[in-house]
């Protein structure tokens, strides 16, 4: 491993300078000739039907250029998000947009618009909709089930007694919508020495990406140019084209820098469609700027859970059975799917011998939900950690030991289908973390000091961390430069650059001679994965590997054709291809590239493999003749679940009188295969840790259930942790053992980096409070003070979104 030239080494990603100097341009920073400014009018009601729109005063204003309403854009069927709607299903649902020569005029126009809306029933807490007689978030029903057998609305109601039983922490007896299981659950519980049974709530919360999803669009000769804030680059395009009603070839997407997405900007979202249609309608470039408040409304939010879990353990701590039931808050657009993923995470992280998952996705008139860093896995990580502690305590075994005995390993099978994993080293991660944290010493130290109590926590995080089947594209030009084309996107993690280094590794070239092309369709990018789900590292290292291998193969063939012999007689190094045994006989990369242009054909991209995606094909066509082209689809072996894993150890000091706690120490260990980019990994582990700290103690949706109003639409009210809420030093490490199904051994880590953090904190808080389990995130100061004072909490059991 140590003979790698680039893998495992730090480097300066090309987008760093722009970010630290402020010169990096985001979607909102672009201006083109004739551009107008659009702003949205969004629903003031949680659910309603627009009966009249009066824009006459706005249209009469000087400087107002146009109005776009739901009639101007394609209709969508509920519950899918519409670009504009006349039946808004949450406060903030876009109803119309107005464009003007400047933003102030656009706002003045908005202020003059009168819209009549007939109110419809609404609900902000799923259980309020589930109970018989409760309101439904949509006229079509209160439940939306997505399944391969067919998706659709349902109306599911439980009796008040059934809901009360659920609230009381007993096994839910009402109807559910989806289920999977493996093993003999009954036997598993019969074999258990200890059975833990608990209700839980994890409140959803806004993504609050630093960059709101502003979009700017214009059309030229039938092509739509779109400046947008995207996590993914190439993967974003087919959805964007479909939304605009054009072919993928007719879209140019520019998204060089993105100020965070966290799952909310993976694929095309309605705002880009709005900008595109508005520009088309008025024949002018349109910048649709999204305000911070609007980013709260339509910037996506984590799915909330209300659940019940029962889990059995044998005397040695081994999990024998797990039974979990989750009501998930899927917002108004039936987005999420977190609950089943949470079940999957239980099966992988704790490996119960038998397991059953049951889920019920319920619609609410709160902000639309979507994937947020560890969707499902991280909610359940927060729930599970204190339960593992409780089980360990009842069994009389060490809290580290109960995690080790259940740790996922190379031969563990997971999920409903009991699939294999590509590799897994959770036990090694736990051991490494315990050593760095000095678990053995700390667990025996004194806990109480005046009103302050120390608590120790251990958390584990997981997310599947890879996919396959995408394309790679590299190019060597006669000047000797190596061009690495990356279509993965740049959401701010530097992985577009670190994964490109695999091509440099294969090509044995100097990093200074490499040029990364990314951020625009016009940069001729390959078809690459979505940049989400912790997949970039595993997936994009493979595409870069196969493209670079194709380039090496072509260089050897060109050398053989030019200098004699067969391709096998040649090797590469020092940016030369040379004859093995007589290294003086060879060609520089620049010379090979020039020769590739002369020879044409596949060497310089005149022809290309048939199995590459149309987006890659177009890029190769544009690049043909400019150098030696390495292009290939990733058809490397991939069998089983690719786990990204992490664990964290944390020590807190909780003040029983204030309900506040300080995080004294944090150690996070990644199991992400071979470490690709140490600084990038450290950043992921630290950023994930901070995010987990926010989920554990601060961030949550708050809705007034009487009128559906959101209480926290801004940065301040969303209580994202600041640098003063987190420890100044966050220690990180990595197992650094290679995954056999990746050519450089790498797997992803982004999401587990957060899951282990929130779990370690719920574990530590429980530890500080003598094992008390709140069964809820976030755990705020008022809850702790109420608990210590022996007072009831101010919310009903399982109540959500309103505390």
């Amino acid at each position, binding site marked *: 491993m140590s003979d790698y030239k680039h893998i495992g080494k730090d480097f300066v990603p090309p987008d760093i300078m722009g970010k630290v100097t402020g010169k990096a341009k985001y979607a909102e920073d672009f201006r083109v000739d004739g551009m107008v400014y659009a702003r*949205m009018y969004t629903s003031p009601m949680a659910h309603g039907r627009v009966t009249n729109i009066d824009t006459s005063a706005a249209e009469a204003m000087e400087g107002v250029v146009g109005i776009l309403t739901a009639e101007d854009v394609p209709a969508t069927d509920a519950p899918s998000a519409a670009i504009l709607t006349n039946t808004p299903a949450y406060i903030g649902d876009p109803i119309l947009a107005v464009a003007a020569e400047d933003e102030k005029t656009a706002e003045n126009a908005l202020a003059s618009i009168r819209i009549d809306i007939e109110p419809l029933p609404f609900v902000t807490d799923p259980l309020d909709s589930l109970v018989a007689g409760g309101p439904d978030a949509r006229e079509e029903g209160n439940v939306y089930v997505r399944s391969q057998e067919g998706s659709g609305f349902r109306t599911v109601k439980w009796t008040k007694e059934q809901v009360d039983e659920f609230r009381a922490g007993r096994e839910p007896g009402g109807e559910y919508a989806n289920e999977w299981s493996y093993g003999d659950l009954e036997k598993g519980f019969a074999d258990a020495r200890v059975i833990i049974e608990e209700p839980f709530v994890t409140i959803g919360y806004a993504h609050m990406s630093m960059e709101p999803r502003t979009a700017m669009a214009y059309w030229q000769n039938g092509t739509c140019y779109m400046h947008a804030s995207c996590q993914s680059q190439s993967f974003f395009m087919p959805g964007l084209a479909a939304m605009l009603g054009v072919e993928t070839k007719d879209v140019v997407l520019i998204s060089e820098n993105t100020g965070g997405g966290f799952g909310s900007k993976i694929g095309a979202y309605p705002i880009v469609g709005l900008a595109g249609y508005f520009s088309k309608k008025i024949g002018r470039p349109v910048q649709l700027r999204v305000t911070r408040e609007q980013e709260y409304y339509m910037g996506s939010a984590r799915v909330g859970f209300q659940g019940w879990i029962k889990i059995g353990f044998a005397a040695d701590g081994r999990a024998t059975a797990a039974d979990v039931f989750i009501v998930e808050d899927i917002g108004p657009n039936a987005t999420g799917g977190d609950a089943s993923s949470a079940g999957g995470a239980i099966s992988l992280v704790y490996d119960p011998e038998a397991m059953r998952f049951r889920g019920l996705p319920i619609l609410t008139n709160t902000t639309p939900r979507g994937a947020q860093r560890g969707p499902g896995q991280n909610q359940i990580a927060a729930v599970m950690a204190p339960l593992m502690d409780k089980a360990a305590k009842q069994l009389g075994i060490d809290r580290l030991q109960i995690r080790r005995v259940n740790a996922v390993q190379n031969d563990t099978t997971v999920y409903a289908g009991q699939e294999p994993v590509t590799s897994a080293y959770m036990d090694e991660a736990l051991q490494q973390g315990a050593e760095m944290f000095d678990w053995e010493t700390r667990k025996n130290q004194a806990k109480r000091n005046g009103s302050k109590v120390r608590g120790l926590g251990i958390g584990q995080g997981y997310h599947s961390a890879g996919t396959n089947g995408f394309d790679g594209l590299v190019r060597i030009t006669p000047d000797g430069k190596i061009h690495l084309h990356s279509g993965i996107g740049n959401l701010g993690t530097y992985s577009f650059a670190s994964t490109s280094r695999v091509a440099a590794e294969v090509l044995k070239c100097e990093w200074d001679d490499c040029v990364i092309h990314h951020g625009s369709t016009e940069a001729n990018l390959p078809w690459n994965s979505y940049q989400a789900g912790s997949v970039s590292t595993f997936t994009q290292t493979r595409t870069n590997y196969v493209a670079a291998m194709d380039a090496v193969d072509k260089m050897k063939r060109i050398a053989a054709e030019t200098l004699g012999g067969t391709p096998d007689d040649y090797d590469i190094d020092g940016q030369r291809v040379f004859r093995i045994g007589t290294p003086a006989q060879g060609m520089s990369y620049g010379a090979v590239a020039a020769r590739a242009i002369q020879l044409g054909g596949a060497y310089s991209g005149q022809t290309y493999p048939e199995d590459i995606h149309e987006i890659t094909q177009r890029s190769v066509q544009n690049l043909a003749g400019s150098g030696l082209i390495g292009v290939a689809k990733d058809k490397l072996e991939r069998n089983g679940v690719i786990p990204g894993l992490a664990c964290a150890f944390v020590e807190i000091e909780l003040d029983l009188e204030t309900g506040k706690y300080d995080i004294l120490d944090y150690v996070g260990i990644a199991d992400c295969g071979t470490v690709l980019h140490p600084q990038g990994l450290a950043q992921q582990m630290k950023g994930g840790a901070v995010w987990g700290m926010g989920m554990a103690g601060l961030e949550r949706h708050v809705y007034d259930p009487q009128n559906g*109003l959101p209480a926290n639409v801004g940065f301040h*009210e969303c209580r994202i942790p600041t640098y003063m809420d987190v420890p100044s030093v966050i220690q990180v490490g990595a197992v650094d053992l290679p995954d056999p199904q990746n050519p450089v051994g790498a797997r992803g880590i982004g999401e587990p980096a957060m899951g282990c953090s929130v779990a370690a904190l719920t574990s530590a808080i429980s530890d500080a409070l003598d094992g008390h389990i709140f069964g809820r995130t976030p755990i705020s100061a*008022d809850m702790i003070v109420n608990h210590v004072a022996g007072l009831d909490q*101010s919310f009903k059991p399982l109540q959500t979104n309103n505390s």
Partner: protein
Amino acid sequence: MASFDVMPDMQLYQPVELDDALNLADRYAADGWILGGGQDTYGWLKDRAKHPQAMIDLNGIEALRGIRDSADGIEIGAATTLREIIRDKRINRDYRLLSDAAATVASPQIRNVGTLGGNLVQDARCWYYRRGLSCYRAGGNTCYADTPDGINREHCIFGASRCVAVTPSDTATAMVALEATMVVQSVAGERTVSAEDFFVGPDTHITQMTSLEPGEILTAVRIPAKWAGKKFYFEKIADRNVWDFALVSIAVAMSMDGDTIGDSRFVCGGVACTPHRLRHVENAARGKSLSDESADAVASIAADGARPLNANQYKLPMMENLVRRAMRA
């Protein structure tokens, strides 16, 4: 509903003489907006939740800045930044309670520009009110927070009177504890008012947090020498350690005779619309020493008379605990 965030048109005045500012304040009265550090200004205006015709920017008026000696203690210009107060040697030596309180305001960035005057006169942070709803405080005829399902975790447990908002100011509690005097000027001249009377509850004036009337400007704060160098205690509990408002805070000044407490001022923030003085605690503390025993005894009565709403009963034990902590040795 439109979401606004662009500054609307209005007149901007940037006087450099106080008299000019007072004349402008008089001319525009309720339609004028007094600008200090701007930290409780641009949100209101850009959201179009308030619609003044003119902004009167005080930042160019040198007389409103600075910390100086007064006949009895010190006088702090209203446009003095919180950062200047936190770093002032004399305040740190003699009136540490104020610098401790100022140091917990918002965030370092906000304290760099936020002024003492602005911190004292900032408006209620009730989210319903800030959202622009027509509640009592906004001149309407309902309260959204004081209902069985209202989101009122951060609202008051004392002094509810139609409105249940709390004082958001961290320095206001310190001012009441230090028996500060507010210097208020208008074209009619200067009037002074004690800090305790400066902050008004909804029973006095439901749409104002202070006794400032249209046309008046808070120009300075005078802190008497009475409490200089006495024993102080300040603590603020908020969800976040920075950029957050107090769930409950306490500012205490105690005159010690050896180990024994004499006169004292106990003032809580975050529990009522005004800084909430705990007179019964002050009486109970008199003659006691700082100890765990007396702390427990006094703390047990700290929240007497509180009437929690559906989601803020935690404020009672939190308040008791803060009194307890102030009374410990």
